[in-house]
């Protein structure tokens, strides 16, 4: 494979498309598939055949707006339809070249205004199992450019110049990480893609793997070239069967086209990727635990240093990045680091994909430049809280993050701004809550999560999360006193400071952030035996005012 051949493939794919006057893209991501978009596609195909119009019906990945699924995108008119069912196939096909079907208008509002698609640029536009469609949209140009025109050092330089930071949550500078692994001496190095998207409420990695798997493979291959690795692993959750299936096909296609294997693109560069399935352990998102899991062991973390960059998989230097991080690599190499660095804020560059869910009008995936405010995302793109309810908080960062109240809605999103507000970026889950959510219960929910997901290796996390959970349960049942609240605060500090890995260190965050912004709710439970949101059942609690004691 050389540049000319790549262009030939792209030209052939474009020519194939030009045979048709129209294209109908049907979303077949997990969300829309659950509403039988496969049947919708079959119905539209059948209808299109009979209509005599030159029309290509394509299966695509996620189009973002899950709330209005199953989604259909018409081209070249770029008209979107929502809630399309089998019975609508006739009208959809009939509308080609004519007036759009009004009843299928998905009421986008401002959903796509203000979004900038870098990671999701191909999602919803290509068939994820057809590598040629990816190539037709500029795919693998970056890998060829890196292999033929750039030295490994200059690849790393571009990534560093771009200011890309780890999208898995930690926000570690990607260029620096690559540079460290590249400089470590070793005959065998590994590249690992962390697709163990354990944060409940985040699904951007699943969506990228389902919609545009080649992008992740290309990013990994470029990384392998830059650091001198020959072997890669993609660690995916077993809960994502569709992503695994599409990835398997994508790897086979990439090998067939010669982007994986030996002597890639007529150079001496060899690289191949294997899939490893997770088995349902949140802690495996931590890099050392993930490595243990790939080695076939229990996924327990180990102390760092040594960092995986020095001693990772089987003791060899290993680079671990998140799915979304790798998905950003190809565009950076294609357009240059400066192009990427022009987006975002001073210290958080580029775009970020968020999963907008919970009590919000338009749920789905959004990709926005860093620096956009929470208000713009939640009320502008997401359309605000439905059913006339009042916005209460937005939870970011999963079980490691926190809940931000209304007064922080004008916070512009960046790694550092979120941390200083008491939450974190995490992998990009954004769960909106209205006034029917009790913040103590939410904190308890996350603590239960951390308690059951604690691997049990270190005591502060194993025992501390249980105690914190018990205390939170006591509060929600109305049996807690001020002493319990003090003890909870104290435990938060101890567990955060002394746990071995990120899971334990950040487990207190949901409690700390709700205590910081919603302390009055804790106090209402404790002093008045009342749940302001009306969620908790405190009927069993009584206040012994004379003795200042509470019985539950």
């Amino acid at each position: 494979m050389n540049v000319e051949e790549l262009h030939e493939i792209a030209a052939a794919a474009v020519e194939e498309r030009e045979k048709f006057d129209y294209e109908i893209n049907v979303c077949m991501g997990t969300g829309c598939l659950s509403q039988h978009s496969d049947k919708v596609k079959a119905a539209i195909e059948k209808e299109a055949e009979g209509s005599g119009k030159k029309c290509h019906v394509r299966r695509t990945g996620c189009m973002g707006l899950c709330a209005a699924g199953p989604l259909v995108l018409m081209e070249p008119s770029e008209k979107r339809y929502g809630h399309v069912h089998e019975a609508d196939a006739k009208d959809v096909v009939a509308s080609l070249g004519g007036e759009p079907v009004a009843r299928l208008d998905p009421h986008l509002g401002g959903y796509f205004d203000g979004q900038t698609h870098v990671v999701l640029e191909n999602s919803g536009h290509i068939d994820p199992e057809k590598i040629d469609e990816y190539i037709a949209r500029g795919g693998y140009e970056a890998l060829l450019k890196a292999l033929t025109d750039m030295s490994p050092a200059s690849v790393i330089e571009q990534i560093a110049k771009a200011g890309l930071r780890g999208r898995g949550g930690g926000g570690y500078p990607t260029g620096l990480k690559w540079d460290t692994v590249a400089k470590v001496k070793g005959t065998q190095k590994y590249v690992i893609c962390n697709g163990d998207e354990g944060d409940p409420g985040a699904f951007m990695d699943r969506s990228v793997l389902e919609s545009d798997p080649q992008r992740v493979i290309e990013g990994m291959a470029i990384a392998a070239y830059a650091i001198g690795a020959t072997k890669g692993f993609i660690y995916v959750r077993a809960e994502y069967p569709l992503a695994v299936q599409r990835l398997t096909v994508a790897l086979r296609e990439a090998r067939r086209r010669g982007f994986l294997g030996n002597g890639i693109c007529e150079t001496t560069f060899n690289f191949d990727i294997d899939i490893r399935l997770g088995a349902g352990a949140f802690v495996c998102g931590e890099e050392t635990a993930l490595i243990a899991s790939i080695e076939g062991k229990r996924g327990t973390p180990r102390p760092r240093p040594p960092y995986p960059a020095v001693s990772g998989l089987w003791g060899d230097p290993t680079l671990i990045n998140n799915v979304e991080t790798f998905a950003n690599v190809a565009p950076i190499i294609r357009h240059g680091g400066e192009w990427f660095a022009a987006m975002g804020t001073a210290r958080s560059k580029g775009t970020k994909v968020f999963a907008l869910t919970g009590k919000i009008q338009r749920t789905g995936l959004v990709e926005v430049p860093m620096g956009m405010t929470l208000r713009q995302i939640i009320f502008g793109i997401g359309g605000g809280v439905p059913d006339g309810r009042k916005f209460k908080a937005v939870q970011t960062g999963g079980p490691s993050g926190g809940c931000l109240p209304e007064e922080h809605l004008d916070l512009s999103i960046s790694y550092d701004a979120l941390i200083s507000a008491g939450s974190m970026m995490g992998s990009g889950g954004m769960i909106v809550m209205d006034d029917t959510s009790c913040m103590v219960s939410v904190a308890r929910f996350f603590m239960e999560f951390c308690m059951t997901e604690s691997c049990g290796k270190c005591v502060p996390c194993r025992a501390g999360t249980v105690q914190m959970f018990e205390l939170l349960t006591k509060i929600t049942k109305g049996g807690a006193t001020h002493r319990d609240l003090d003890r909870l605060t104290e435990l938060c500090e101890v567990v955060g400071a002394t746990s071995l890995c990120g899971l334990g260190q950040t487990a207190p965050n949901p409690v700390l952030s709700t205590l910081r912004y919603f302390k009055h709710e804790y106090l209402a439970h404790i002093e008045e035996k009342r749940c302001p949101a009306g969620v908790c059942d405190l009927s069993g609690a009584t206040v012994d005012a004379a003795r200042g004691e509470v019985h539950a």
Partner: protein
Amino acid sequence: MPLYAERPPLPSEDKRWRIVNGTMRKHGYSRNALIETLHTVQSSFGFLDEPSIRFVAKSLRVPLSQAYGVVTFYHFFSLKPPGKHTCTICTGTACYIKGSEKLVAQAEKLLHIHPGMTTPDGEVSLTTARCVGACGRAPVVLLDGELSGQIEAAELTQQLERWTMQ
């Protein structure tokens, strides 16, 4: 003596063991194929029992303690056979905010079992999941592996009753 002589014979004539063996062969009977192999056993047989864990451990030359440790560490592996039907309720954050707790309570009341259990007649298994990544459609339930989004308590009741009435 050739290495394969140490490998145990297949536990039975069941053809599914050949699939399991195939996974191990693909990974060159390497120890780090333990989780991959256990996945194959579970997808072929539906669960992991003692003979299958012993067989895999011996084939891969992994201590039985390590194999058992791995099986019990990961939530995805089950030591009990699943019921004829499975109902998995997602309890991720988005589903929680949209009321998945009520769905769990409803299912518990109907089936008289807690999550992680199977009805005594072996008809329905009830489990919870830590986010299946379909948060845009919350609350989400997997019925026999098929995803249903924005599900109401009444809909869930209907489906479960259909299974239990049979």
